[in-house]
């Protein structure tokens, strides 16, 4: 038992040590300390390093986290059981940090610049790691002491919290929430009038907010709205019908480009009316989806995924190719794309556009919702669950799938139109594979197969990177890590689809159980 505790302490130290080394090597120590500094109302000016105190605080916080983690894992009755494992934990963490300082400190002392190989490790940041001490040995000892003590502190804090406070706090909070939730909220929401009031409130909010919060939020929300459309569209074929489409961006691009070519002054100067061009663009996207599906959809498995992936690349390359430059504008893209008009008046201000996007989202969500409950929707779901059985019950699986793909391509085309028209610019770089990957991700992060889930997913995935702009360089890194963690913690998404499911099997899966045990 004791040995297991030591091992888990060691492991916690090792993991956090690796993370800390990694964070230092990518230059996050500076950014992290800078964020802390900003948090305490002391923003760091450009070109300067955060103050020593915040660096220490950042390191200490890591160690405290590590210590509390191993305390949580071991969960002892008495603190004395915890002392040794935590010392091991802190020791390992401290040793790794100290070693890093020692190595890089000596490099600096010898005048070697390691930035040729590790770009973020500048002499200034090494000095920061060494807590502004000049001798590497001193710095190593100081870091070792700091990390060990902080780890110990973390474990102590967690132990005290866990033993003496958490129960009390949890109990009071949960009892309060329960009483409030059950008595008032339930009666409120169940009343029909309340629902209409809520609806009216939401509509009013949608109407007034875009006028108040400025163009940046309109822009971000507009992007979110366009991605909601994409998510709903992809959900038709992937979420409900169960056919994976990786190259969904191709339909998006075709919609955007058809619309742009019809409404922009260059390269063709057709300058068509917004609504007519919108209809044509949606129809073209749908047609392309139909034509792609025709030969592929009666094949099985992931082939649709791969074919659409290839198709998306083909579309992107063709759009920017020399061959079609005179037709599509080539890599320069298309500028001055037409905006919407309403009864002859210009309707393209950012506030009006966000209304347009809202309306489209509500419209498409409504249609999709009706479709799901219709015969077609049930046929799709049957195909997703089991194609053979679906076929046996008389569903024409091929034409159902074809319909789903066509509709889904049409929705993507609509999203493309809105996207191009709002930005007044579109180019090949707007239609890279990353867009479709983002759409797949938002669909799954929110919860496959339901529309509120998609909305949440779009908010999280297109809104989050906007929030993460604070940490600009580390934005995509954080995004990737969050994606993995999200899938590990909540694989069904934020809002899992609620659909009638078969009852759980009477006997539990032995393998699953065994894994849980291990």
């Amino acid at each position, binding site marked *: 038992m004791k040995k297991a505790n030591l091992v888990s302490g060691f492991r916690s130290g090792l993991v956090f040590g690796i993370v800390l080394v990694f964070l230092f090597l990518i230059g996050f120590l500076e950014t992290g300390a800078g964020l802390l500094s900003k948090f305490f109302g002391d923003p760091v000016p450009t070109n300067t390093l955060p103050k020593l105190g915040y660096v220490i605080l950042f390191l200490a916080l890591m160690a405290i986290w590590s210590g509390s983690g191993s305390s949580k894992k071991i969960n002892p009755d008495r603190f004395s059981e915890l002392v040794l494992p935590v010392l091991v934990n802190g020791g390992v963490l401290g040793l790794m940090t100290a070693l890093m300082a020692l190595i890089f400190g000596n490099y600096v002392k010898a005048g070697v610049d390691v930035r040729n190989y590790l770009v973020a490790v500048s002499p200034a940041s090494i000095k920061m790691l060494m807590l502004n001490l000049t001798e590497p040995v001193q710095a190593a000892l100081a870091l070792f002491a700091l990390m060990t003590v902080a780890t110990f502190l973390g474990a102590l804090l967690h132990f005290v919290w866990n033993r003496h406070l958490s129960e009390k706090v949890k109990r009071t909070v949960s009892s309060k929430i329960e009483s409030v939730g059950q008595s008032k909220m339930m009666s409120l929401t169940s009343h029909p009038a309340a629902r209409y009031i809520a609806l009216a409130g939401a509509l009013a909010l949608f109407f007034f907010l875009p006028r108040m919060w400025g163009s940046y939020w309109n822009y971000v929300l507009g992007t979110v709205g366009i991605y909601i459309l994409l998510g709903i569209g992809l959900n038709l074929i992937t979420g409900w019908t169960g056919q994976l489409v990786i190259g969904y961006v191709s339909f998006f691009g075709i919609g955007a480009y058809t619309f742009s070519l019809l409404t922009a002054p260059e390269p063709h100067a057709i300058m068509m009316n917004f609504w007519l061009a919108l209809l044509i663009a949606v129809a073209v996207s749908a047609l392309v989806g139909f034509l792609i599906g025709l030969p592929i959809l009666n094949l099985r*498995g992931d082939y649709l995924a791969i074919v659409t992936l290839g198709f998306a690349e083909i579309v992107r390359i063709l759009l920017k190719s020399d061959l079609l430059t005179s037709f599509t504008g080539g890599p320069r893209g298309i500028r001055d794309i037409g905006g919407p008009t309403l009864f002859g008046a210009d309707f393209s201000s950012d506030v009006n556009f966000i209304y347009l996007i809202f309306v489209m989202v509500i419209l498409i969500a409504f249609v999709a919702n009706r479709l799901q409950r219709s015969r077609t929707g049930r046929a799709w779901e049957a195909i997703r669950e089991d194609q053979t059985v679906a076929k046996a019950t008389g569903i024409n699986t091929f034409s159902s799938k074809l319909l789903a793909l066509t509709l889904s391509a049409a929705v993507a085309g609509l999203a493309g139109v809105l996207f191009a028209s709002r930005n007044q610019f579109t180019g090949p770089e707007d239609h890279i594979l990353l867009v479709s990957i983002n759409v797949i991700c938002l669909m799954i992060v929110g919860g496959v197969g339901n529309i509120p889930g998609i909305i949440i997913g779009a908010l999280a995935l297109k809104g989050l990177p906007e929030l993460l702009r604070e940490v600009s360089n580390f934005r995509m890194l954080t995004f990737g890590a969050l994606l993995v963690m999200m899938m590990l913690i909540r694989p069904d998404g934020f809002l899992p689809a609620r659909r009638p499911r078969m009852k759980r099997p009477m006997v539990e899966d032995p393998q699953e159980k065994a894994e849980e045990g291990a």
Partner: protein
Amino acid sequence: MKKLNKKALRVLLVIGKYARWTVGIALALFLTWRIYQVLFVQQAFTADTWLRFALSGLILGGMYALIAIGYTLVYGIMFMINFAHGEVMMIGAFCCYFVFEALRFIPAPIAGNPDLVFLNAYPILSILIAFLVGMTVSGFSGYFLEKIAYRPLRHAPRLILLITAIGASIFLQNAAMLLFGPQRKNIVNPDILTRTAGWTIQVAGKPVLISYTGAFSLILSALLMIGLYFLVQKTKLGRSMRAVAQDQDSAALMGVDVNKVVSQTFIISGILAGASGVMWGIHMGLVNHITGSLPGIKAFTAAVLGGVGNIPGAMLGGITLGVIESMGPALFGIDFQLKDVIAFLTLIIVLIIRPSGILGEKLTEEKL
């Protein structure tokens, strides 16, 4: 209205069924005509140019093949597109870079030459070290990738695994960028493997260079693939891998440790990716954080082209794709910019005409 709908659908169905053949035959006719035009009527290129195309295609194809095997192994067992596989290859390429850089700093004054460094004094040993390090690190990356990101989701729907893989791929790419910087690094080979050196042969009166690095990577990838084929077909590990690929539950009942086999599959696929990464480094000479992403997509395409889950299929698919990429534009007389268009079109057409890939796939229906 309803009846009309049904009728229309039926017509569509018929079109869909015959579309395959119509598309196939029309394309075959067009291609034959086009190739005849280019080869015999226009005669745009002489024999030496064709040989150059073929050589560069073969070398590229060999590397695609090696990466494609990694995809196919994992896809065969977990039915999952391991999007992070290209990034594992990138890790291998970085290993090659760092090993060569390190060895360039170790002096080895032998035979009275004081300026000689380890890399040039013991070139074969250096390359061996690079491969050893690259394959080990990539193997470990594959192992940890599976253990941390995929294993907890073994029984989750495939889409979820796909997202996890995408997340891991984004993470690894950006981690490499933040660690080593965004610009491409130059890999300096040992002197005997300088990229411009090679055998020169005379074709149609012009010299054609077969570079040592190209020949080296082609031979090596062939050897690795043969080795892997035997591993999968002849050893106990290979047998349990095939068993798990066919049916996880039955394999478990027969006493196969599924977790272990999946782990080992990821290690093997990582090792192969590492080897191809080191080869990529030695032949192409450049590495940065996006080195793995494009070859990754291509290799996956190659795996599907040859037949998913089928190791000889992955080899054939890789070579085919490489050759199509380098010869296709010349053969069809179009811009070289469109080589990927040709590659992906080939994939689509092959899938339409022969849905299970060139050599057929080795999967069971149950996987669906």
